[in-house]
């Protein structure tokens, strides 16, 4: 899914993001290899990648902006438009589907007031089906931002959605160090 870039002006990248670039580039025998890590860096800072960012990455790694765009449009993880405050990705592929991921998706669409592939009207959630995320024995699995939730049963969708909604009010969300065995650790 490749959305067109948002027309709203994007905020600038944080200085600490920019400062990390030289060390990342220096890890590789050829600079161009740093294209993907720099794009991840940008996306983790702002949530999506703008044309200006692609120009910046191109400059860091010594290629044309077009060559960066080629990469951005190839890999499903890169986005050119903002998403909701929580990115909810339900695994669609066979192992999870056999365990009910389609029913889970239908229930989450209702509980989060958001259709698959879209962002909820209040901007809180982006809900997507994704392909296999390599946790097949614990299906259905749901990857939310950097956390992996396992065995999310379709019948528990409402409860799960409530949990996700509660994180919107948690100022420490995503900042606590991960503990083994928790969704944050497995993410």
């Amino acid at each position, binding site marked *: 899914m490749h959305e067109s870039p948002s027309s709203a002006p994007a905020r600038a990248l944080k200085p600490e993001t920019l400062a990390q670039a030289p060390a990342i580039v220096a*890890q*590789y*025998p*050829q600079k*161009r*290899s*740093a*294209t*993907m*890590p720099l*794009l*991840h860096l940008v996306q983790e800072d702002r949530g999506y990648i703008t044309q200006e960012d692609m120009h910046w990455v191109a400059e860091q*790694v010594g*290629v044309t902006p077009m*060559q960066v765009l*080629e*990469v951005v449009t*190839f*890999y*499903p*993880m*890169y986005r050119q438009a903002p998403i909701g405050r929580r990115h909810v990705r339900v695994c*669609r*592929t*066979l*192992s999870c*589907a*056999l*365990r*009910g991921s*389609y*029913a889970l998706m239908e229930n989450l669409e209702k509980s989060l007031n958001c259709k698959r592939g879209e962002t909820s009207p209040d901007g809180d959630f982006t809900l997507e089906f*994704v*392909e*296999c*995320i*390599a*946790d*097949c*024995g*614990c*299906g259905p699995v749901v*990857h939310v931002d*950097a956390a992996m939730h396992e065995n999310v049963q379709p019948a528990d969708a409402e409860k799960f959605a409530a949990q996700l909604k509660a994180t919107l009010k948690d100022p420490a969300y995503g900042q606590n160090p*991960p503990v*083994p065995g928790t969704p*944050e*650790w*497995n*993410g």
Partner: protein
Amino acid sequence: MPAVERPLIYANLRKPGYTVDIDCYLRNGGYEALKKAVALKPEEVCKEVEVSGLRGRGGAGFPTGMKWKFLDRKSGKPAYLVVNADESEPGTYKDRQIIYKDPHQMLEGIAITAWAIQAKQAFIYIRGEFIHGAKILERAIAEAKAKGFLGQNILGSGYSCEVVVHRGGGCYVCGEETGLIESLEGKRGYPRIKPPYFPAVLGLYNCPTIVNNAETMAQVKHVLAFGGAEFAKIGIPGDSGTHIWGVSGLVKRPGLYEIEAGKATFGELLYDLCGGPLDGRKIKAIIPGGSSTKILKVGERFKGKLANGTEFDWALEDIPLDANSIAACGTGLGTGGTIVIDDSVEMIQALSNLNAFYAHETCGQCTPCREGSLWLSRVSKRITTGGGLETDVPLLLDIANQVAGRTICAHGEAVAWPVQSAVPKFKDEYLESIRKRQAGEAVPKLKLI
């Protein structure tokens, strides 16, 4: 005799209280195999791995020692080691455990392999979605460097090797070794054509490169720990070591089971270890080694002759869990990611689910794969939505036959094999699915597409 597990790769990470830090690994005998390795000459380490009979764990099962032998050492160009941790074959989740729970085991294997092939630089290409996994590995690398197991002057040998963790972007085709290399070079992950781009000769940056699976690296650690000849005694001749069976889908206890190669059967795996089907259900079929391996149907008879001349006549439950026996049944051990399908599942939906996966993941370079995967996805989906025709069943097979063998990389086969294997076995059920929908009859509740 009921099947028993023999944890080798998972032995430590299953211990209660086992943690990912280097002190815990060292308390459990960590990095002793590396000490053994650097006391040997690199070619002696290669020899140990060759003698061990270790086969790669990424799906193709190529002998690891032989792969290392192909490395072009005469070009004068630097050699690279690339570890494929881009675990993305549907049904496969074994490498995730190693990365998240015992990263040093893999790093030790990497250090040994790098020494064996004299690579000064190694890359771990990890799934982009393993966000925390990449951090665990980076921390582990820093710890290993601080203790002299990686980085400069490893264990005082004068030899140095740097390891970099590189996150992918959620793309299945980057698990294909040449697609992975392109991706690591900062490009779209379009697989390269062989010849000339055999990684051992023209790999990363057109330098000689060894691409090995993440679990293979962990296995290499054990090859050195045991010694090649001792390791070869685990399992059976022609397939040594353990296989991690990642069972998913419709059994009572889906999970990861590590079994000595050839020392149990599918029946024992599915019924003893996984507890059999859910209550009131029957297992109908399994996809044995990741979604691109050919499907096996319960009730089929598998007859033939093994490479060593032994004749066999097996039911699915009798097939021994080793690479050669499974290959002799017309499918593959692959990654050991077994997907179990029971009698509540409508087979056309299962096929359509996988067809949608391959259509999503085709890189688009080769016309047969790009077009064929989309056609397969659309044709199978239209059957599930009621627009199917009886001619769609042979059409699926016809399309698949035009993809396999006509593409740069094995994604073409991965697209075709599920269809080519399932259509002859489940043709009647597919036709029944078409008829039911035409007649407006009820269809199974479980939705897969």
